[in-house]
């Protein structure tokens, strides 16, 4: 039984933050919640966690309403990181674990295990304020999972991390999935989503514009991408323009990217190239990238949003 978000609506005064948002997440999967800043991702997560109540709609996990579920069902990594800065790492983590009923001894063992995994065992007895932002974020992640929650909800978990730490966190994601956990996270870094997520929902202005498995979402775009490279300088590809429905989306240094409408067999491009006497060095049929899916549905690239998002958070 999955995590089901069923047509939730939430208003803050005159602002409609969420407008009939629905999606579902299969257990044991990694799910990406994509959307621009202010699209409603955080509100959505807070409603799932039952720290906000929706005006209408419901959330259930394994058939039980979230309002009736024990709190230790969820692990939460909020977007705004916050820890008790003046406490020792081990004390902060054991405190949060104790709120979920985890005995101190078990919590201590798990904390040490995770600090090793994140390669920061020496920070165990340091005060949180002495840690870098990236390391604080890792502590925050540990705080979210110490009580062994069935579902992990993470709001922009990769923001502010350097590549090494991004990799460590991704490994932690896979570790959690291998333990049978369900992971939901929001982001606007499309490469991360491509790498981690089995399914996604894209939210724009409080509505789900598209949801489903990554494969379905890409197929639903109704087109495929062909990457073609030939010997020669590539200027001799004028014949491509004359083909029905085919559009060149970009000229790269060593290949050309084309879009092919759904009804067309991409292989006809390969045949056409050979007919024109080209020597084909690369021919690749691919689904459109999530970036393209996002632009298609939201009308602007996610990266621009990401920059704006960072600019609005000068504290990071």
């Amino acid at each position, binding site marked *: 039984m999955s995590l089901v978000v069923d047509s939730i609506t939430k208003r803050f005064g005159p602002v409609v933050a969420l407008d009939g948002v629905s999606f579902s997440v299969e257990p044991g999967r990694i799910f990406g919640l994509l959307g621009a800043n202010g699209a409603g991702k955080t509100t959505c997560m807070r409603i799932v966690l039952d720290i*906000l*109540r929706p005006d209408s709609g419901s959330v259930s996990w394994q058939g039980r309403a979230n309002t009736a579920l024990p709190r230790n069902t969820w692990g939460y990594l*909020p977007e705004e990181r916050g820890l*008790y800065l003046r406490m020792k790492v081990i004390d902060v983590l054991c405190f949060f674990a104790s*709120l979920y009923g985890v005995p101190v001894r078990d919590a201590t063992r798990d904390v040490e295990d995770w600090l090793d995994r994140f390669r920061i065992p020496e920070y165990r007895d340091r005060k949180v304020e002495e840690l870098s932002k990236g390391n604080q974020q890792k502590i925050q992640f540990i705080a979210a999972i110490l009580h062994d929650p069935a579902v992990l909800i993470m709001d922009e978990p990769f923001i502010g991390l350097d590549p090494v730490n991004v990799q460590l966190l991704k490994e932690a994601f896979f570790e959690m999935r291998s333990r049978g956990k369900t992971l939901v996270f929001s982001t606007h870094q499309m490469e991360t989503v491509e790498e981690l997520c089995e399914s996604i929902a894209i939210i724009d202005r409080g509505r789900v514009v598209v949801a489903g498995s990554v494969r379905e979402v890409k197929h639903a775009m109704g087109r495929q991408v062909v990457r073609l490279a030939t010997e020669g300088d590539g200027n001799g590809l004028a014949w491509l323009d004359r083909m029905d429905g085919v559009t060149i989306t970009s000229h790269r240094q060593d290949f050309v990217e084309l879009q092919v409408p759904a009804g067309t067999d991409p292989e006809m491009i390969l045949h056409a190239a050979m007919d024109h006497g080209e020597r084909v060095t690369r021919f690749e049929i691919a689904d459109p990238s999530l970036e393209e899916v996002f632009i298609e549905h939201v009308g602007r690239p996610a990266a621009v949003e990401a920059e704006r998002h960072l600019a609005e958070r000068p504290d990071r």
Partner: protein
Amino acid sequence: MRRLFPNAWHVARREYLMRVRSRTFAIVTALLAVIGLAIPLLPIGFQLIAGDRATTIGLYAGDASLESSAATSLEAILNAGASGGGSQTSRYVIRAVQVPEDARADVRAGKLDGLLSISRGDGQELSFDLYTDQRASNQAVVAIRQAATQVSIADRLSRAGIDPGEASQIFAPTTFGITPVDPNARHPEESFGPSYLLAMALVILTFMAVITYGQWVAISVAEEKSSRVMELLITAATPRQLLAGKVLGNGAAGLTQYAAVVAAALVGVLAQGVVAERLLGTGGGASLAGVNLWVFAPFGVFFVGGFLLYATLYAAFGSVAARQEDVPQVTGPMILVGMAGYFAAFIGLTVPDAGWVRALSLIPFFSPSMLPMRMLLSQVAPWEWGLAAALMVIFLAGALWVAARIYSAGVLLYGQRASLRAVLRAVRVDR
């Protein structure tokens, strides 16, 4: 509804340890303990300083026999009056002087407190003149004037042929009793002083506790909001658990500080006798004799109730503040209520039986200081205790309900102007 414990305990424990382990707490507690120790010993210190200094009056009569007899009786009368008149042990020394001009110079130089000149006029009547820089209403001047009058009367009696033995009978103190209107009133004159002081101390202690420790709660809530720990906390625990934990943890820390101060003050009170003996050579100091010490039982109960009431509301107000800097502004109404109670109790000290004092003393925001105050200085009827306790319980329940609502809404209110309107909106909005 989720159980309050053990999560409230976890929150309270963290809150308590963080508070008690902080350097500020240690410094402030030590400072307050020193003050607590010093206050009971202060009167002894005053006596020590004042005791050294006798009032020295020069006496000039021109006539040697008049001078010596006047000096003897003046000294006897002045010092007798002083030792019988209360705790002040001011001493008077009368010194005969030969040259009035030199003595006047001594008075101007501060070596003498005054020069009393006696002369016998035409009708053999004595007349007195006091050369001093003190005003006529000064305590010493008044005493000297009374003593002079007695010397003058004794002089008239001896001139009328009444011998000194009979004269001393004439001056013997009379029998003077006091019959109280209400013989059961627990306030014989001599215990009013310590009772009054204790009542005042309780009023001040209550006010400080409510304002200081209430503020602790509000700041600690706002701190969690501004450091964004709050979002993790409300995922892990319910607003009621957090609220209860905050209030209990800070309350326990406050009680710890209070216990240290009260213990120091008790040591000071117990040491009064020993210290007085060592320094003054006499027993002394303010004693608690005649004070109704049973007052500490209801005071303890109402103090805890009052603290819980204030702290709960402080937590709610604190949750509306977006940043720590907003806390004083947001908690303004609470401080006003606390101040009102403080001033009402202070004015009430002088009129403990006034109708408005009796009425206010039943209201939960004021009862913790005003009921014990009335108990010490007057009487509190059993039904008043009952009504005040019932009101306290009702108010506490109401405050918890309202505070939990404000808190659960307030903790997620970021970036909004902290105002009373925001609070009211927070109460209306469901979560």
